[in-house]
């Protein structure tokens, strides 16, 4: 019983030691980044020295817990190729080949290049906006359908999610046409303003 308690205490103290070391290493890394960022010209002896010292300290604090864990045969983050217990009874549903995802990626890249190219053509603002948003919607649909796997999910999920977001975004657009009017409203307002607005100011002086 007492033996077990000591073992548990040791475990706890090890845990505390490792935690403190990792925290100190993180702090040293932070100071290394800070000294690198604060130095106006990074490639000076001073800035290189301070950054190197901080990195060395961080390494020192990481090495101790890493060696301790390794010595005791503890590999908290190692994964083997055997199926871990958490996944043993899981039903996995995955469709799509590497080739398909590569095609989607190439399509997305091509659309991005077209968008950047279009941005340098002089066209009226609303036509440009329509084309860019149209291309972006195609890209979004490709990401949702293939990368987010929605095309291979059950239709009930698609019918729950997609109409929801489409209708909500359409509702957000209800007030949008006002923005076309707002400009002209303000123009008449500012042209009338000098008469109404300057009168009290002149009265004051």
């Amino acid at each position, binding site marked *: 019983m007492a033996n077990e308690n000591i073992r548990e205490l040791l475990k706890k103290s090890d845990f505390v030691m490792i935690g403190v070391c990792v925290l100190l290493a993180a702090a040293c890394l932070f100071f290394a980044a800070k000294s690198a960022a604060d130095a106006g010209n990074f490639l000076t002896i001073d800035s290189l020295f301070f950054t190197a010292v901080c990195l060395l300290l961080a390494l020192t604090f990481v090495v101790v817990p890493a060696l301790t864990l390794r010595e005791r045969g503890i590999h908290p983050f190692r994964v083997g190729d055997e199926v871990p217990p958490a996944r043993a009874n899981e039903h996995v549903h*995955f469709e*799509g080949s590497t080739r398909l995802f590569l095609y989607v990626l190439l399509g997305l890249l091509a659309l991005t290049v077209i968008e*950047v190219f279009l941005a340098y053509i002089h066209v009226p603002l609303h036509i440009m906006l329509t084309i860019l948003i149209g*291309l*972006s919607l195609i890209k979004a649909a490709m*990401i949702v359908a293939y990368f987010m796997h929605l095309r291979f999910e059950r239709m009930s999920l698609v019918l729950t999610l997609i109409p929801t977001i489409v209708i909500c975004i359409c509702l*957000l657009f209800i007030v*949008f046409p006002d923005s076309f009017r707002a*400009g002209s409203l303000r123009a008449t307002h500012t042209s009338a303003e000098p008469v109404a607005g300057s009168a009290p100011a002149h009265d004051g002086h």
Partner: protein
Amino acid sequence: MSTEAHVGRLPATDWDGGALPYRVGHRKLGMWLFIVSDAMTFSAMLITYSYARVSSDAWPTPFPFYPSIIFSTTMTLFLLASSFTMVMAVRASAHNRLRAARHWIGATMFGGLAFLVLHLIEWEHLIHDGLRPFRLAGEWAHRWPEAPPLFGASFFAITGLHMFHVFTGVAYLGVIALRIGKTRHEDVEISGLYWHFVDLVWMFVFPLIYLMSVDFGG
């Protein structure tokens, strides 16, 4: 058609309340619902920005080809590439190749970090030029005298919120990569959903914020 007639039988259609009407776990459904709500947040912000822009007499178009457009296009390529590596991570995880999955997630995190670094450099340029949330940079006020001072507010708010999502995503993927031996495949897939959503939002932020503000003279 009485209820008794259904007792002991599996539901025949999607909608009569089986154990999994959507055939996804509750966590995945939760992430999908979060994504829908987050998409509404971003669309509200982007629509508000468009509203302010359309209703203004003028709007600054300050982004020169170099560095802004080159930087933002490179950032887009990094995000798209990281989305592809994330798909490959989910694929590897689906086949229980955990080591490969971890490496692909690492590549995804690299893409996200590269995006963050490039974007912070871009922010630094603009802040150095004097752009503030409610004040235009010095020279801009002369070039676009009729423009309202809202450019900085919309730019920093929208790209800042997106950058926060990228940062959160990198941290989230880091946790998933470290714990991949203890998680289920579904958890990897859910983190993938979040990452693709971050990518998807940028597909709208990039044209609306950057490409619509290209400086033709630059």
